[in-house]
């Protein structure tokens, strides 16, 4: 198992945003985390990335216990992530943003530059390399976040709503990029509330509802699951269908 999160709970005050959720990720493949807004996907995701310290549970990644590890330790171990709202380094150029990621594995500037150039070409950002990151639009920034994360040479890439806010055409190019990343042998966990994206992209889907995992399996089967339909549409709609 590449990633093993066991019985994670995240409690804010009296509110259990994540309430005993587990997730196992094998090497290779794309796993989708779906669920309605407020289901606890993003909180769970931030626990996995080391941004939040879970109240309960244990997380193992690539053979080490990372439950209490810092975000930078996660990056060193080979877990990279993007953010729901992109946080690129606005005043730096696109290439320099990617350089920051590349310096994790390459101590020297020339080697980091070569690694960054390769990632820029792979993500199609090479033409924008000298632009200021702050001058990019949302699709460009989301792509830059992915490029920066790839430059850290991860085993596992966590994508937090990497496709939200994109037009259908932009979603198609983003999906194509995610597939090419997978082809490089990088395992991907993607959080998404657009179910169609998970249906086309993921090999396995995990459905969150009220802080718990209510279903997991092949995406097509999962979305047919009555519990999942109920979570998305509410009990009222379920009765109407009957």
């Amino acid at each position, binding site marked *: 198992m590449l990633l093993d999160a066991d019985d994670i709970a995240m409690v804010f005050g009296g509110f259990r945003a994540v309430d005993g959720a587990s997730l196992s990720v094998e090497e290779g493949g794309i796993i989708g985390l779906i669920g309605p807004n407020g289901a606890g996907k993003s909180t769970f995701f931030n626990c996995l*990335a080391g*941004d939040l310290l879970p109240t309960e549970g244990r997380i193992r990644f690539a053979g080490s216990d990372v439950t209490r590890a*810092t*975000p*930078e330790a*996660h*990056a*060193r171990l080979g877990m*990279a*992530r993007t*953010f729901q709202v992109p*946080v*690129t*380094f*606005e*005043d*730096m150029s696109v290439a*320099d943003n990617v*350089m*920051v*990621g590349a*310096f*994790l594995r390459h*101590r020297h*500037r020339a080697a*980091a530059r070569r690694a960054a150039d390769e990632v820029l070409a792979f993500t199609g950002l090479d033409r924008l390399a000298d632009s200021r990151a702050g001058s990019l639009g949302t699709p460009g920034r989301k792509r830059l976040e992915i490029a*920066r*994360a790839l*430059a*850290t040479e991860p085993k596992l890439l966590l994508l937090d709503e990497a496709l939200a806010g994109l037009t259908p055409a932009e979603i198609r190019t983003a999906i194509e990029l995610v597939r090419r990343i997978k082809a490089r042998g990088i395992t991907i966990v993607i959080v998404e509330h657009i179910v169609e994206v998970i249906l086309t992209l993921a090999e396995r889907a995990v459905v969150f509802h009220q802080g718990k995992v209510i279903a997991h399996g092949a995406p097509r089967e999962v979305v047919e699951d009555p519990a999942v339909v109920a979570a998305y549409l509410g009990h009222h709609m379920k009765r109407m269908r009957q």
Partner: protein
Amino acid sequence: MITPGRALAIVGLLAIAVWPLAVQDVFLQRVGALVLLAAISASAWNLLGGYAGQVSVGHALYFGIGAYAGLVVYTEWGWPPIAGAPLGVAVSATLAIVVGLPTFRLRGHYFSMATIAAAELARILAANWPLLGAAVGLMGPPRPRTIADLSFTSPVPYHYLFLAVLLALLGLTALMQRSRMGYYLAAIRGGDRAARSLGVPVLRYKLYALLLSASFTSIAGTLYAVMVGFVDPDSVLGILVSVKMIIIAALGGAGTLYGPLVGATILIPLEETTNALLGGGGTGITYIIYGAIIVFVARFQPGGVAALWRHAAAWRARRAARGTHAA
């Protein structure tokens, strides 16, 4: 390659190097030395406040430690003041870790406020500590005993001493800027959370930047004590000492190599001229100038003079592109 920026830097540094020989007026020579001294402390502040984006308003702490260290080694052991520089650096570096570890967990304004508190604490302590001369302060050697006292009536030797230190600092900064540390500091300025997600050990690099910054600020303080020969709590530990470093760096361009030097070249002559014209009663004018500069830089050009230069370079590039297009 000789870019317009590099050419300007070479011409500027050459002009600074020949300044005290070109002007024979002692007042102008003294202004030149003071510009360099201010450029050293503002460039040192710039390592943390500019490159890493951690705006310290308490760098007077390190400046004051360096200044007092220079005169304490003289009053206690009779050493030449410059020999206090290593002591000042050692104490500053230690205090930098003590102040840095808790305050770096604070963000934005809270960090700035905590640094003010640390410097004010040191000022009050110095004003009540007999070893440091309490509120009266300390005096250096009344007349030079040996050359090692570095006590000269002419400002010219100071000019070259300060220039050597400034060049060493700028050289080190240029190396850092191109290394992993330069990229990591820029990432920290861009945002802690994103930097950490890319494996940047944020706290460790903030401490590296602070250690370098505090050490050179302390050296600037010792150089001040060597030249002026007198320190008291307000002149080396007062909040205006910190504010002046920030204004100079911001005016020239925080987070750029030559920004602090450019800022010092503008601000110090202005300040010295108003002081000379208006005499002791005119020192208040300095504060009005500081205030006006803060308002103008914040309102019209947060990037300082360096940003104006970048805009001009971008404009030239666009014009050149249009030129080749038409041809």
